[in-house]
């Protein structure tokens, strides 16, 4: 760990790295890969994935990611799976999906998203990002994608329970997978699939709202609290107001209540109306985030 005395001293070290001398000043020749890269780069997708990759990496090297994963796994297996399946004797994924959409997405997603932009702001790295040729929407979407990917990984761990059910449910049925017939537990796979689609949509919208809250402040705690209350308001408050009001007002609140919008997925129905609801929440939140980031140039 000894500090190097001068920069020049390290340069004469006999380390052969032949490429470093021959760096052309102008961008490379007309390689096909580079041409493709130039086109794709213009679309912004590469910056989005670069930002998302870093975000995902940061979650894995920080304790936050592991704590979230630990709490998630513990609660999902304890209350979602063991409670429902073993104690309640129901061979469904209902317990798992209910605890994820009803509780964990509310309290854990804000933990994943709170640092996304707030930390960049407080550390000053936002200046590094926004003085690179990165468009504001690329930053917003990249941040969203990074945290959403982590949420997807968490969701993926719950597939273990589907496998467990499929193996241990006494009623067996035969299904064909890629031409091979296998005997698995007689589960309602359509219902399970629609539940997962619902959980994906809930996660996508919640993470986007978290990104927006994180762009509002440089304080991560504030970002957490704003996200938590924002999600609570969308999920339950509208539902409660709808409960205590009469039509036509209650119709409106019933529609905007995330709780009602998720219900069809848990019943096996994937409807366009509810998909559009969650997708527009996600897109709307990311759009506002982009606008917030842009506003620095007008102030």
């Amino acid at each position, binding site marked *: 760990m000894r*500090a*190097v*005395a*001068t*920069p*020049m*001293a*390290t*340069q004469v*070290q006999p*380390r052969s*790295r032949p*490429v*470093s001398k*021959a*760096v*052309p*000043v102008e*961008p*490379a020749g007309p*390689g096909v*890969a*580079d041409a493709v*890269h*130039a086109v794709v*780069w213009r679309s912004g997708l*590469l*910056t989005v994935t*670069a*930002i998302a990759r*870093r975000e995902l*990496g*940061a979650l894995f*090297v*920080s304790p936050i990611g592991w704590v979230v994963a630990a709490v998630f796994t513990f609660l999902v297996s304890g209350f979602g799976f063991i409670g429902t399946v073993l104690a309640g004797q129901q061979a469904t994924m209902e317990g798992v999906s209910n605890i994820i959409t009803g509780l964990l997405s509310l309290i854990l997603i804000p933990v994943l998203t709170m640092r996304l932009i707030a930390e960049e702001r407080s*550390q*000053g*790295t*936002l*200046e*590094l*990002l*926004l*003085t*690179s*040729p*990165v*468009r504001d929407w690329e930053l917003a979407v990249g941040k969203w994608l990074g945290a959403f990917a982590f949420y997807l990984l968490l969701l993926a761990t719950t597939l273990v329970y589907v496998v467990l059910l499929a193996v241990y449910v006494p009623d067996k049925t035969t299904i064909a997978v890629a031409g091979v017939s296998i005997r698995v537990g007689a589960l309602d796979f359509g219902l399970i699939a629609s539940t997962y689609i619902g959980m994906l949509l809930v996660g996508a919208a919640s993470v986007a709202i978290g990104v927006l809250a994180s762009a509002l402040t440089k304080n991560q705690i504030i970002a957490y609290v704003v996200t938590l209350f924002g999600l609570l308001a969308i999920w339950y408050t509208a539902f409660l107001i709808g409960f205590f009001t009469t039509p036509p007002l209650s119709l409106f609140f019933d529609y905007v209540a995330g709780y009602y919008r998720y219900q069809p997925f848990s019943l096996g129905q994937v409807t366009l109306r509810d998909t559009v609801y969650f997708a527009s929440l996600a897109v709307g939140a990311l759009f506002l985030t982009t606008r917030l980031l842009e506003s*620095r*140039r*007008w*102030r």
Partner: protein
Amino acid sequence: MSHNSGSLIEVQGLTKFYDERPAIQDVTFSVPKGQVLGFLGPNGAGKSTTMRILAGFLGLSAGQASVDGYDVFSHSLDVRKRIGYLPETTPLYNEMRVAGFLDLMCRLRGVSPSLRRARVDHAIEVCGLEERRSEIIGRLSKGLRQRVGLAQAIVHDPKVLILDEPTAGLDPAQTRETRTLIKEIGRQHTVILSSHILSEVAATCERVLIINQGRLVADDTPQRLTEGYGRDRGLEIEMLVRGDAEPSVIEAKLREVAGVDEVVVTAEGEHLWRAVVSGRSAGLREELTRAAVEAGLGVREVQARNLTLEDVFLSLTGDDET
């Protein structure tokens, strides 16, 4: 937008308000390709604001600024492709490793995949980070962090480098290293760097802009600034003389010399006097020596006090103490 092909950076009447308070007002300058330009001013003078506007991070209230012919406001993305920027606080992703971080910066700046590896290696080599390429940035010392900051600024081979206080907070050895590095980099790039340390600007820059309270107050080479200012202001000469005479007599004798404005004599030891003389004549040192010898004094030392950039700076920024 600029049509002057000779200069890489064009700034016209640049003004920026934070709420009601002007951070910079009517700043105009241009930087030709290849120049190393120093931005000098006290803290809060508007250096960082100007640099942030050029780097596309902040908007502007009035005026125009362009880099390589692209307007920083309407063609922000084109500008940002062409600059490498090191913010004042050297923000870095602490959890990343040096090479990985530089690779990320390449990706964000559109360096094509076939060049990426070579560019990262090049930046690491120029900044003397070979030994540290796989170390975690959060564990590096301040000086090494600064080198990583410089490496990320040059990694995509930008046309213009904007370095905000690149040596702030470094110890003297690190400062010297960083200056050497900037000089090295300055051979291939156009560089704007800011500083409130005068010797730094004098050591690294071909040209100095002095900014105070948001306004440009000087624009010249470090040499010409000190020379020109010295001519207006006159010289200050310090003499050490030996003799039995009273201080008032010595003072009177020296005052007789043509061109002398002011003489202050203080006791330095037994029969040893220090005289500080200010005046405006070209051969003042010789004249003073002759006068002292004729008055029967032994002359031990005659020294012209060098005017430094510091004197110029302090007088231009209205905080004259010398």
